[in-house]
C-alpha cells in the first residue's frame, strides 16, 4: 500500500454532495480536496446514479474505501460475496485501501445496522486477528481497522481498549484507522484517560485518521456524526499528528448533513493542522 496519492485532509463523500462536487470543479476549495473516502456499501449496487457518479468522482480524485457491513468480529462465516464485490469495485475505481470497524453486526440470522462493541478478551483477539488475516488474504493486501465508539462495556474485559487494539494490529499485521472522535467519546463514556488510550495505540500502524462531531446526551456522548469537530477533539488531533506526523485525515459527517461548504471549512482546519505538523516534522 502506498500513501503516494492519499495525503493531507480529505472528506467522507456523501451522495447529496456529489452533484456540487462534480459541478464545482472551478471552485478552488472543491478542486483542492486531495481525496475522498466512500462508504463502499452505498455503491455496491448494480447501476444508476451511485455507480455513474462514483465513476466520475474516481476519474477526478483518489479514493479510499470504508465499509460498514462486514461484521468483521462476528462468529458467522465471512460474507465472501460481499468482500469479492468490494474487491472488484476497488479494482474498478483504483481505490487505495479498504477499512472496516472493529465490531460485529450480526449473530446467527440476526443482522443489525449498527457497529456493536466487543468484550476485550484474549479469545476475542484470537478470533478477530484470524478474521482480519482472512479478509487480507481475500483482498490481497493489508486492511485498516477502525476503533469504534461505544456506550456499553463488558464487565469481564481483560484489558483496556488500547491494549486490545494494539494486540490485534500486531497479530493480524494490519493497519489502523484511528478515529480520534471515537477514542474521545469512549474515554468520556467510560471515564478513562484518553492519553493512556492513545499511548497504547501503535502509532506507526495508523494510516488514516477520522474526525467527526458527537452529541452530548448529558450522561454520555453519542457519536452521531452530526456536528462540527469539537475543540477538545481538534486539540487531541493536533497533538497526535504533531507527535506522529501528518497522517491522512478526514471529516466524517452523516446525520443532519450540512452543505458541502461546511465540510470544506472543517477540512481546511484539518489541512492547516497537518501542514503545521509537517513543518514540525521537517524542523525535528
Amino acid at each position, binding site marked *: 500500500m502506498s500513501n503516494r496519492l492519499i495525503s493531507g485532509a480529505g472528506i467522507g463523500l456523501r451522495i447529496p454532495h456529489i452533484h456540487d462536487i462534480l459541478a464545482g470543479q472551478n471552485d478552488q476549495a472543491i478542486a483542492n480536496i486531495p481525496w475522498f473516502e466512500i462508504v463502499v*456499501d452505498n455503491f*455496491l*449496487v*448494480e*447501476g*444508476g*446514479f*451511485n*455507480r*455513474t457518479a462514483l465513476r466520475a468522482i474516481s476519474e477526478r480524485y483518489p479514493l479510499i474505501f470504508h465499509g460498514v*457491513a*462486514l*461484521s468483521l*468480529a*462476528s*462468529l458467522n462465516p465471512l*460474507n465472501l460475496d*460481499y468482500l469479492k464485490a468490494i474487491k472488484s469495485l476497488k479494482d474498478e475505481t483504483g481505490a487505495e485501501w479498504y477499512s472496516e470497524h472493529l465490531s*460485529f*453486526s*450480526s*449473530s*446467527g*440470522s*440476526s*443482522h*443489525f*445496522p*449498527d457497529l*456493536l462493541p*466487543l*468484550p476485550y*478478551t484474549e*479469545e*476475542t483477539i484470537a*478470533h478477530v486477528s484470524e478474521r482480519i488475516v482472512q479478509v487480507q488474504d481475500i483482498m490481497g493486501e493489508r486492511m485498516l481497522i477502525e476503533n469504534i465508539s461505544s*456506550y*456499553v*462495556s*463488558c*464487565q*469481564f*474485559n*481483560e*484489558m483496556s481498549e488500547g491494549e486490545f487494539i494494539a494486540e490485534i494490529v500486531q497479530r493480524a499485521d494490519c493497519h489502523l484507522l484511528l478515529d480520534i472522535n471515537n477514542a474521545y467519546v469512549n474515554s468520556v*463514556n*467510560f471515564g478513562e484517560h484518553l492519553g493512556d488510550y492513545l499511548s497504547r495505540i501503535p502509532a506507526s500502524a495508523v494510516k488514516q485518521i477520522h474526525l467527526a462531531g458527537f452529541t452530548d446526551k448529558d450522561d*454520555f456522548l*453519542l457519536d452521531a456524526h452530526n456536528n462540527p469537530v469539537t475543540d477538545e477533539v481538534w486539540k487531541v488531533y493536533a497533538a497526535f499528528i504533531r507527535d506522529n506526523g501528518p497522517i491522512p485525515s478526514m471529516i466524517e459527517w452523516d446525520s443532519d448533513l450540512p452543505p458541502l461548504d461546511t465540510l470544506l471549512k472543517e477540512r481546511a482546519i484539518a489541512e492547516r493542522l497537518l501542514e503545521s505538523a509537517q513543518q514540525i516534522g521537517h524542523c525535528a
Partner: protein
Amino acid sequence: MKEAPINLAQWQQQFALALVDERHVDDFTGLLNEKDSRRFETYKNNARQALLQTLITTYPMCERALGEQCFAQLASHYIHRFPLRENNLNQYGAYFADFLKSEIKANHSLKDYDYLVDVATLEWHQQHCYYAQDSANFDAQALAAVDDSRQAELVFMLRPDIVIMQSQYPLYELWLKHRENLQTVEIPEPRSLYYVCIYRDQFRVKLESLSREQYLLLEQISRQQSLQTMIDKGIHIQALARFIQKTWICGFKHGKQQ
C-alpha cells in the same frame, strides 16, 4: 482483572437477543459494567431508527398517506415481525406491501387504505428501478440488418430498470400528486385496471401511464416471447417502435426458429 466467565459467542448471542426481544435485556445488561448498562437503550434506538428511516426512504408515498405517526407505528410492527436478515439495507422492506395487506385486513381503522398495498408494491419497484443495472443502447443498425425472413423469431429485451404494474387504483395520478407535494390525496375508489411503467430517466425514477395494449406488449416482452408468439397471441405490437425509441427496449436476440 477477572477471568471472563463468558465467551465471545455468548456475548454476541445475548447482545443480539436483547436487541430483538425485550425479555432478554436483563440477561445481557447483567454482563455489562453497571454504570453503563442503562445505555443499552441507545443500541436499541439506533437499530430501530435505522430500519425506520430505511422504510420511510423506501415508502414515502405510504408514509405521507398514513401520516408520520401511523406509519411509524406500522413500521415498528414490521421491524418486529421482519428483522434485518442480511447486511444490505437496500433490500430491507421487501415484504412491506404484503404486511400492509394483512394489517389493513385485520384493522378496521385502516379499511380506507386498501390502495396502499399497490402503492407499496409500486414503491418497492421504484427502489429496484433506481439501483438497477445500466444497459447498453439499442443497436438500431443491427435490427435493420436482420433479414425479413428471420424477423418473426426476434426476442426483445427490456431494460433492467423497467417494471410494469397493473392496479385497480390510478397509481400514475397518485405518484404525480405525491411528486407535486400535495398534502391531501383523495383515496380513490377501485375501478377497472390502470397500467403503469416504472422506468429510470437521467437517474430519476419516473412513471408513465400505459394503455392495456401497451401493458400486454411489455408484459410479453418481459417474458421473452418472440415477435411471432406475440402476434399469434393477438398482442398489438404497434407500440414496439415507440418503446425502442424510448430505449425501454435495450436489445434483441434471435429466438428459436419456428
